């Protein structure tokens, strides 16, 4: 299995990527895309010479928990690549042969599921197929090796460097020259893209038939990761709200405790939803253990519905310095640094610099470019809050609850 540097070198494959209206000649040299690449490369380095867990399918609840923990600790392409591996449970020799190559060459794969206004079509020819059309919301398109493209009952693994593939990338990475006051997004962003397929020729060994049911399985780990991450994020909101309240000296004020308690309930319920999805894990026909979908949908809907309210409380207890705290460069400036440390400090044990850094992480995650991107993508991926509620209703076993209602009313 390859190293981070070998991964970087593998991306110099002639891929056609655009960002901010300009062609990117080398994605590994682009100052914005390199933030995504460094994140992926760190995962490579962490598992260089070892088996990467994303290539394994969980066969028990314990393994499922380990798999999710792994995804939360590593870059986002781990979840999409693991989704590709999950497809092997649906059968097909061609797919198994392909995923074996993915494992052998330690590749990263992105899921290309959502069509643009010009849906993808796949036309057979003597050398394989020709892929045409477009996909949007392709997570990691510019920094992975292959795109697993779904088109009706066919799936095609398209190398990103193929002639005719055009990746129109976007990234929520910070654009400040000195990005030290973006403590999370400076190292944890993954670029997304609209991908255009302009009569892309793909060999037959990369074409998989009977793929109608692929979408649900391909995105299973992204879905599960999002709900697990929501529970982590809710606890982070509580941790930040409590920490900044203590730093401000207001953690015992009644209206602050009201807000902290509301966040605590939210964090517990998000955690409970995720734990229930794990506790009620199902075993697929292929023997893979997955979180329960009805709990995933319900928890996602619940978390999304209250997310803005929780961040509103966080802003409220933190105060205006969320958006006005000085930068690290300001602290470094000898003309003003000492004064800033003096006035950002609140009491013994709370240094001005530590408090400033807490404001930076709150802003970065909940009141700036990355925060906006994170909030919107979590809320609307998969159709938005209405669709999440509908999915919850559709996956709810209504038979027993109707029977209970009838029994309560004395109706036989």
């Amino acid at each position: 299995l390859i190293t981070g540097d070998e991964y970087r070198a593998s991306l110099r494959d002639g891929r056609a990527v655009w960002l901010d209206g300009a062609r990117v000649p080398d994605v590994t040299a682009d100052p914005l895309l390199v933030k995504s690449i460094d994140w992926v490369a760190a995962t490579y380095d962490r598992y260089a010479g070892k088996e990467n867990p994303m290539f394994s399918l969980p066969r028990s609840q314990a393994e499922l928990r380990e798999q999710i923990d792994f995804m939360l600790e590593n870059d986002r392409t781990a979840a999409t690549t693991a989704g590709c591996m999950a497809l092997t449970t649906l059968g097909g020799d061609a797919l198994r042969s392909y995923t074996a190559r993915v494992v052998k060459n330690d590749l990263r794969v992105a899921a290309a599921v959502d069509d643009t206004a010009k849906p993808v079509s796949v036309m057979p020819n003597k050398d394989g197929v020709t892929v045409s059309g477009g996909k949007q919301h392709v997570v990691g398109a510019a920094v992975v090796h292959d795109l697993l493209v779904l088109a009706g009952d066919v799936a095609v693994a398209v190398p990103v460097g193929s002639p005719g593939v055009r990746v129109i990338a976007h990234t929520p990475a910070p654009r400040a020259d000195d990005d030290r006051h973006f403590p999370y997004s400076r190292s944890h962003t993954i670029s997304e893209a609209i991908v255009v397929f302009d009569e892309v020729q793909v060999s037959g060994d990369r074409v998989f038939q009977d793929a109608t049911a692929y979408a649900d399985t391909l995105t299973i780990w992204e879905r599960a990761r999002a709900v697990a991450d929501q529970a982590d994020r809710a606890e982070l909101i509580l941790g930040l709200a409590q920490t900044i309240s203590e730093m401000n000296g207001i953690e015992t004020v009644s209206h602050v405790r009201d807000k902290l308690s509301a966040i605590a309930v939210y964090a517990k319920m998000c955690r409970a939803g995720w734990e229930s999805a794990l506790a009620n894990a199902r075993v697929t026909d292929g023997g893979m253990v997955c979180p329960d979908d009805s709990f995933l949908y319900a928890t996602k809907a619940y978390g999304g519905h209250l997310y803005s309210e929780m961040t509103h409380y966080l802003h409220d207890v933190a105060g205006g310095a969320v958006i006005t705290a000085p930068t690290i460069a300001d602290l470094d400036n000898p003309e003003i640094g000492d004064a800033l440390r003096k006035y950002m400090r609140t009491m013994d044990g709370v240094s001005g610099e530590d408090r400033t850094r807490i404001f930076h992480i709150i802003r970065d995650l909940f009141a700036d470019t990355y925060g906006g991107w994170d909030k919107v993508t979590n809320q609307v991926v998969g159709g938005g809050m209405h669709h999440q509620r509908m999915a919850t209703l559709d996956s709810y076993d209504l038979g027993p609850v109707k029977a209970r209602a009838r029994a309560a009313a004395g109706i036989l």
Partner: protein
Amino acid sequence: VPMMTGEQYRASLIDGRKCYLDGELIKDPGEHPLLRTAVDSVAGTYDRFYDPDPAAFHPMYTIPKSREDMDQRIAALGKSDITAGTTAACMALVEVAPELGKLRPEYRERIYEFFEWCKEKDVRCSEAITDAKGHRKKRPSQQDDPDAYVRVVSRERDGIVLRGAKLHITGAPLVHEQVVLPTKSMKPGEEQYAVACSVPSNAEGLKIVNTTNAPRGGEDQRHFPISHRTNMPEGLLVFDDVFVPNERVFLDGETSHAASLAHALGLWERSNAVAYSGSSADRLVGLAALLAEMNGAADRTDIRDLLSEMAIFATMCRAGWEAAMANAVTNEDGTLSPASLYISASKFYNAELHGKMVDILHDIAGTLLVEAPSMADYDNEEIGDDIREHLAGDSGWSAQDRLKLLHYVRDLTADTYGGWIAVTESLAGGGQYAQRLVTLRHFDLNNAKDLARKAVGL
């Protein structure tokens, strides 16, 4: 003295003020890439309202005496940058001038002289109210650092010397005067903290450390259709033993009146926010309706449910301002003030539901909201046709119009400027808890109890 033009305003900023951004000293804010557009917007206000008549002045210096005055003032501020709003709020000092005059007659005279000076010189002022505060539960006099609240460290025959810091000062590096006011009420023994005065931005010992919501790395302004022109820096003012002459000192040591100044300005600040909340909410409804049309979903039942929720929100925001003006009060000098009860209740309501309204907007918009290609992508010869083809839906919207709408909504609600809006809507003019307290204080609870007693038959 005639009003300033935009060019004269730009020149006036090069006065030796010590402004910092991202750790660097800025010599000319008008030339700095992250401050330039804010300077442009203020200069634009100057040019828009310029009148060569020596007696002319910006409407923000009109102290409203009637509903008509108020409507004109609100309309004028709506066509101006934020510093006109902060300046207008500072002019609310005249509202408390009669009261301060009873303490010391010179306070009243100085306030009116300062008001006339600002009006004549056509300057901009900041509201420098929020202190560093240290430990929030402790009084200013109980802090381990006595400078946690701005204070008078020495008094001289012709003035006072200030030390401390003021935070979250909107427009600080772009105004001429920093109007310093106590952030809260003070008690006997805290006389050094009961200080109100005005300090020129270039005063010796004053440093202004800034942040900004201007787009970073955004050379292509089309990607930030709002924030490239309406951004504004926020300053952290460090007063390192700054001398303030007596004629600019409006309160010095009278703890009984420390809070009245901030209350007066706070009401005006909140009033400005509430006055525009109806039109801001209408804009959100309009954006949601356009997004629904763009996505071909305008007739869906669930979308119409969401739009109706937003329409109720917008209507209630407007109703709050109307009620505040219908119940406005006039002080002994004839100044008209919107009713605090309705202003605080409306401010709370608007901030409390703002996030929910933005959620609806995002739900209707979909993921392209934060992933749409830039207008530079659209212009690129190699991929422009791809974007036109892949983003044009069957709802009759062109890819270009879709991109414009998506970038506008992202900039307003899901990017740097959107984050700034979310935080300031909640915290400017006092946080949510403060709005609750003020509302309860002004609510006629006895009348409510009487109604309840009668209803119950007690």
